[in-house]
């Protein structure tokens, strides 16, 4: 077999390597260095972290290539970046930058209100957010090599990530107990490709790694999501909106390894400065919830 690049196997392979790790949002090379020194498995390069996007408003777009390059030169871990939902030209530019993973993200302002990017056309792997199994399988059908819960980005509130993870896992469980003849109706109901529904019913999990994002602010939040079934975590505003980002970043890395050890988590959590303030979901007007973007 001759050498092949950009295959689905190679894309999912990188997602497999990130398991048990923390992917941290950073907005410049200095923050990227802090993240790498703390043990991040990857950084997500973006112009503004979600909490600031939420506060400042305006159209949020792909990061400036100069900033992405500076971060790539600073660190040796994978560098991810976000493009707008449906904005395949932004994705093409990120691929030309040799970004290691592209996040087609609801945190940025959507560019297409009906369609996501056809991700199989790219050599770079994609991660996409999902709130339920149907959404996850639609994204995988389009070529996503990793799924993450959407949660509610920039909120510092874990409640939505928990809802999305529990929903995805319980819908997976439901498929495994259905009769074969019931799977087509399930696919229709979820709006998901039948072949992927059949596959999930057979293997009892998503066909790609299942990570958590959106609202993680503390080591305990990490432990909660990992115990619920997340295979790794993304932390956005939670680190660089906290009192001492370097300490918090290290604690979050430790919590991702030792998520099942309450005594260790107690020691990891002790002595940390204050976490980001966070928002009660009722404070976020329905039209401003980032998780509702994507189709």
């Amino acid at each position, binding site marked *: 077999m001759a050498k092949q690049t950009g295959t689905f196997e190679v894309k999912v392979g990188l997602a497999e390597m*990130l398991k*048990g790790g923390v992917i941290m949002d950073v907005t410049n090379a200095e923050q990227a260095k802090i993240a790498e020194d703390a043990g991040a498995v990857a950084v997500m390069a973006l112009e503004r972290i979600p909490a600031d996007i939420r506060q400042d408003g305006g159209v949020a777009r792909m990061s400036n290539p100069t900033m992405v390059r500076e971060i790539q030169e600073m660190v040796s871990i994978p560098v991810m970046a976000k493009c707008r939902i449906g904005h395949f030209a932004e994705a093409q530019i990120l691929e030309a930058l040799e970004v290691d993973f592209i996040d087609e993200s609801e945190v940025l302002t959507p560019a297409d209100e009906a369609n996501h990017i056809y991700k199989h056309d790219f050599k770079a792997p994609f991660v996409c957010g999902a709130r339920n199994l149907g959404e996850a399988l639609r994204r995988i059908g389009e070529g996503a090599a990793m799924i993450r819960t959407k949660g509610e980005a920039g909120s510092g509130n874990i409640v939505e990530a928990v809802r999305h993870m529990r929903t995805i896992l319980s819908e997976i469980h439901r498929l495994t107990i259905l009769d074969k003849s019931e799977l087509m109706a399930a696919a229709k109901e979820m709006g998901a490709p039948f072949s992927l529904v059949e596959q999930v019913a057979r293997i009892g999990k998503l066909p790609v790694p299942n990570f958590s994002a959106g609202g993680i602010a503390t080591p305990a939040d990490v432990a909660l999501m990992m115990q619920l079934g997340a295979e790794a975590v993304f932390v956005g505003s939670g680190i660089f909106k906290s009192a001492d980002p370097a300490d918090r970043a290290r604690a979050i890395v430790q919590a991702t390894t030792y998520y099942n050890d309450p005594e260790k988590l107690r020691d990891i959590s002790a002595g940390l400065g204050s976490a980001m303030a966070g928002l009660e979901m009722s404070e976020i007007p329905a039209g401003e919830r980032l998780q509702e973007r994507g189709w």
Partner: protein
Amino acid sequence: MVVTVGVLALQGAFAKHQQIVEQLGFQTLAVRYADELANCSALIIPGGESSTISLQLDNNGLREAVTEFARNHPVMGTCAGLILMAQKTDSRMVTTLGLLDISVSRNGWGRQVHSFTANITIALDNGSADVPAVFIRAPRIDKTGPGVEVLGSYDHQPVLVRQGGHLGVTFHPELTGDQSIHDLFLKSVVT
């Protein structure tokens, strides 16, 4: 007696290694604490991010324990695990364990868009085999010392090396379902 193979579970694709090792009839243990090594007859250091695993070895008192364990037990490292087992690496973020007399460049084949699959031929004790190999932001072995056997190469570069009971692999045998690399390693555990 049931033989237990430890898989270092600080970060990375440890669960995939456990699956294959269990298919081959061994017990596995996801190792996160130094004292767990006492129950293991061999250790696998999986793929992941070598900088993260290196830091987590130090943060959790595992570096000395793993070095000590490797004196009289076989260790296999894949990708990030191979970087950790090397004598030297170009990455200032990784402190190596020095279990294999090799020098390694991290991400030696380039960023993710250059990650690739290929078939390689490996030397076995009783002949050779063709195996599928997945290289993910893989390290490159730049130099091998005199005690290191090269058991497999790709594009004239060593990708599978052995020194005593230790095995180093720049690709990911845990991702393909092919068991021959694990089989080769675990033979040294039984004998």
